[in-house]
C-alpha cells in the first residue's frame, strides 16, 4: 500500500564550520505515519528538526512537503506543529486559553475556536481542566496541553521533540499509549525525535537511526531491531543491547565458527559465513534473547563460563565470557545457572549477524529477511 509521501529530506546537509552536523541525509516519510528520529545526543537529530521547522537553513539538499520545496517558506508558514519536552505552555493562561492561542493568532472566529478547543480537550481527556492554570497540572497533563495546543491548529506535520523525557516511567508508558491512539485517531503525520530506543520502537512505524550526523538505517521497527545494518544500530537498540563477539573465522565440524582464545561460537549450519575467508577478523552479533540454553546433543551448542547472574522478574540476565570479553544472555528465572559455573548455549539461527571487525558493517544475514 503505497501512501503519499508527506515529507521528504533530500541529501540534506548541514555544516557548522568544519563540523558536519548532518551528512547528506535522505528520508521519505509517508502520510499518516510516525517516523522516529533516533540517536544519541549530538547525532544531528535536533539539527534536522531545526531545518524541517525552518529555524536553520541547510548547507545543501532540500526539504519537500507534499512534493514542494519549503526552503524558501518562512518558519511560521510551513504549518508544522512543534512540541518540546519542556511543554512551553503559557503559565499565566488557563488551559482553555493555551489551547485557543494558536487559533486566535490565526484570527479564527470565537464560536469556531470554542468548538475546536472543546473537541481537542475531549480528545485528550483534559476537559475538566480547561479552567485551570498550568501550575495546577501534573507533568503528563501539561504535556497533553502542549500537544493539544499544537494539534488544534491542524498542522501538516506534528514534530515531537523528546516529548516524554520529563515524565516518570509509569507516566511515560501511559503517554506512549496515548500518543499511539492520537496518531491512529487523527491520522496525523508525526516526526518523533528521541534518544530512547523504547519510545522509537513502541511508537514509530519507521525508525531512522542516526549517528555522527549520518543516517545509519531507515526501516520498520522490526527490521531495525532484528536486522541492524551495522554494529552501531545493533548496540543502540535493545536492553540489554546486542552482544558483539569478536574473533577469527574458523572451521569447526563442517560449519563455520568464530573463535577467540578458548571460546568458540559455531555459526548457523547451512554454509553461513562460508564466503568469509578463514582467519579474518569478524564480529558475531547476537541479541541476549536470541541465545537459549542448549540441549546436551545440540550440534550448534557452545559452552561458556558464567560471570554473573541477575534475576529480573520473569527473566534472568546472565553475563558470560567469550574470549577475554563478556556478553549477556537472557534465560528464564529459575534456570540452573550459577555464578562461576558454565552454561551451554545455542543461538537462534536466523537472528545471528556477522559484522566486519573494522567497519562494523553487516556482512551477511543468516536468515531470509521476511
Amino acid at each position, binding site marked *: 500500500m503505497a501512501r503519499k509521501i508527506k515529507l521528504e529530506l533530500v541529501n540534506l546537509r548541514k555544516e557548522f564550520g568544519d563540523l558536519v552536523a548532518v551528512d547528506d541525509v535522505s528520508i521519505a516519510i509517508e502520510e499518516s505515519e510516525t517516523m522516529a528520529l533516533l540517536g*544519541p*545526543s549530538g547525532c544531528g537529530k535536533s539539527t534536522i528538526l531545526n531545518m524541517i521547522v525552518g529555524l536553520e537553513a541547510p548547507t545543501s539538499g532540500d526539504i519537500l512537503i507534499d512534493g514542494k520545496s519549503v526552503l524558501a517558506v518562512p518558519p511560521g508558514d510551513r504549518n508544522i506543529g512543534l512540541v518540546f519536552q519542556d511543554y512551553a505552555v503559557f503559565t499565566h493562561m488557563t488551559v482553555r486559553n493555551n489551547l485557543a492561542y494558536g487559533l486566535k493568532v490565526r484570527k479564527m472566529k470565537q464560536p469556531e475556536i470554542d468548538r475546536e478547543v472543546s473537541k481537542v480537550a475531549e480528545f485528550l481527556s483534559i476537559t475538566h481542566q480547561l479552567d485551570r492554570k498550568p501550575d495546577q497540572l501534573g507533568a503528563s497533563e501539561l504535556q497533553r496541553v502542549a500537544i493539544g495546543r499544537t494539534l488544534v491548529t491542524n498542522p501538516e506535520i506534528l514534530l515531537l521533540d523528546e516529548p516524554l523525557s520529563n515524565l*516518570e*516511567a*509509569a507516566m511515560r*508508558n501511559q503517554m*506512549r*499509549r496515548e500518543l*499511539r491512539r492520537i496518531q*491512529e485517531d487523527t491520522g496525523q503525520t508525526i516526526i518523533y525525535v528521541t*534518544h*530512547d*530506543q*523504547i519510545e522509537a*520502537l*513502541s511508537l514509530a512505524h519507521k525508525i531512522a537511526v542516526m549517528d555522527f550526523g549520518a543516517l545509519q538505517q531507515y526501516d*520498520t*521497527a*522490526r527490521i531495525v*531491531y*532484528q536486522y541492524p545494518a551495522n554494529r552501531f544500530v545493533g*548496540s543502540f*537498540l*535493545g*536492553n*540489554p*543491547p546486542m552482544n558483539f563477539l569478536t574473533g577469527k573465522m574458523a572451521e569447526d565440524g563442517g560449519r563455520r565458527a568464530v573463535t577467540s582464545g578458548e571460546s568458540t561460537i559455531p555459526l548457523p549450519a547451512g554454509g553461513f559465513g562460508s564466503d568469509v575467508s578463514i582467519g579474518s577478523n569478524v564480529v558475531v552479533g547476537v*541479541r*541476549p*534473547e536470541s541465545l537459549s540454553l542448549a540441549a546436551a546433543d545440540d550440534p550448534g551448542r557452545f559452552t561458556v563460563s558464567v560471570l*554473573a547472574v*541477575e*534475576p*529480573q*522478574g*520473569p527473566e534472568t*540476565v546472565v553475563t558470560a565470557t567469550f574470549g577475554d570479553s563478556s556478553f549477556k544472555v*537472557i534465560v528464564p*528465572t529459575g534456570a540452573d545457572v550459577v555464578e562461576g559455573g558454565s552454561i551451554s548455549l545455542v543461538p537462534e539461527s536466523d537472528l545471528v549477524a556477522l559484522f566486519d571487525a573494522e567497519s562494523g558493517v553487516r556482512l551477511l544475514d543468516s536468515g531470509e529477511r521476511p
Partner: protein
Amino acid sequence: MSEPVLELRSISKNFGGTQALKDVNLVVPHGSLIVLLGPAGAGKTTTLRIIAGLDAPSSGQVFIEGMDFTQHQPNQRDIAMIFDNLALYPNKTGYENIASPLRIARTPKNEIKARVMEMADLLKIRHILERTPATFSGGERQRVALGRAMIRQPRFYLLDEPLSSLDFMLRIDLRTELKRLQQESGRTFLFATPDYTEALALADTVCVLIEGEVRQIAKAQELYDEPVDRDVARFVGNPPINIIPARLTRDNGTASLAIGTLNMALPAEMEHGLPSSISDVEIGLRPEHVHMVGADSTESHLTGTVNDLEPLGMHTTVGVNLGGVDLFFTVPGVQEFKDGDKVEMHVDMGSILFFDPKTGLRIS
C-alpha cells in the same frame, strides 16, 4: 561487628498537614547494599535526608552503629550522600577532582596518591586522571564524580537516584559497576531509586516505600513473585501486572473465576488456598503469564481482540480485550499485529495472584 550500621526506628515525618513518612523501620547491616524503592513522592528522599540529618523526624529515632544519632548535626554523622547531579571542578584534572576531599581533610600526600589510584582502579579511570573534565565522556564524568564522592570512607553512603540523569546504556554499565565496587570494597550502600530494574540489578535486599510506608522488605525476586499487596505488585514489573476484578464461585468442590463475560476453572490446589468466605476478589495476572497459542492448540485457550500494540524490542506488549476486560500480555520479539486481530491466548491460571479488593492485601 554484628551491630547494624544503621537502624531506623518508627520514623515519622509530617510536613504541615501531610504525613510524608509513617512509622518507617529499617535495619541496614554492615557491608550491605539495600535499595529503597518507590515511586516519586513516596518519601525516599525524605528518608535519606532524615538519615543524613538534613531534616529532623517528627518522631522516631535514627541509630548509627548502635547509638542514637537523631539529634546529631549532619557533620557529626560521618555519612556521604550522593545525588544524580554530581558536578566536577572543570579546571582540575581527574586526579585532583578525586583527591579534593582528601586535600580538604589534610590527608598526607602519599596516602592521597594511594587512595586515588585505588579508587581509579575500582572505577577503571586510570587513563583519564591527567585530563580535565572537558575531555571526558558522560560515563567518565560520572565515574570521576563517583570516585570523588567515595574517596572518603564514611560509615555508609546514601545514594539518591545517582544514575537517573544518565543515558540508559551508561546507567546499565554504571549500576553493574557500582554493585561490583560495593562488593569489592565491602562498603555499605543505601540506594534510593524509582526504577525496579535498577533495584533488581543492584540489591541484596529491597525496601519498598509507597505513600510514606514501608510495604515490604524482601529479596528483589521475591517482591515480584510474592508481593504483599496490590501496590507493590503494580510497582514491580514492566509492563505492569494486570489487576482485574473477578468473582470466585464454588460449585460441588470445583472453583471457577468469573472475569468479564468469561468463566475459567481454577486449579484445585489454588482453590484450597483461598478462604471460603471470599467471593469478590481482584486477580493479578502478570503479562508473561498469558501466552499466545495456535487456534488448534490442545491447551485451554480463549479468543481475545487486539486493541494495542507496543513493540519494545525483546518483547512486544499486546493489549487485548478478553471477554470485555482489557489486559496486556507480552510476546517475544517484535510483533506486527493490527487492531482488531483475533489472538488465541492461554492463561496460566496457576500463576494468578489474588488481592482483597478493599484492603489491596494479597490473599495467599
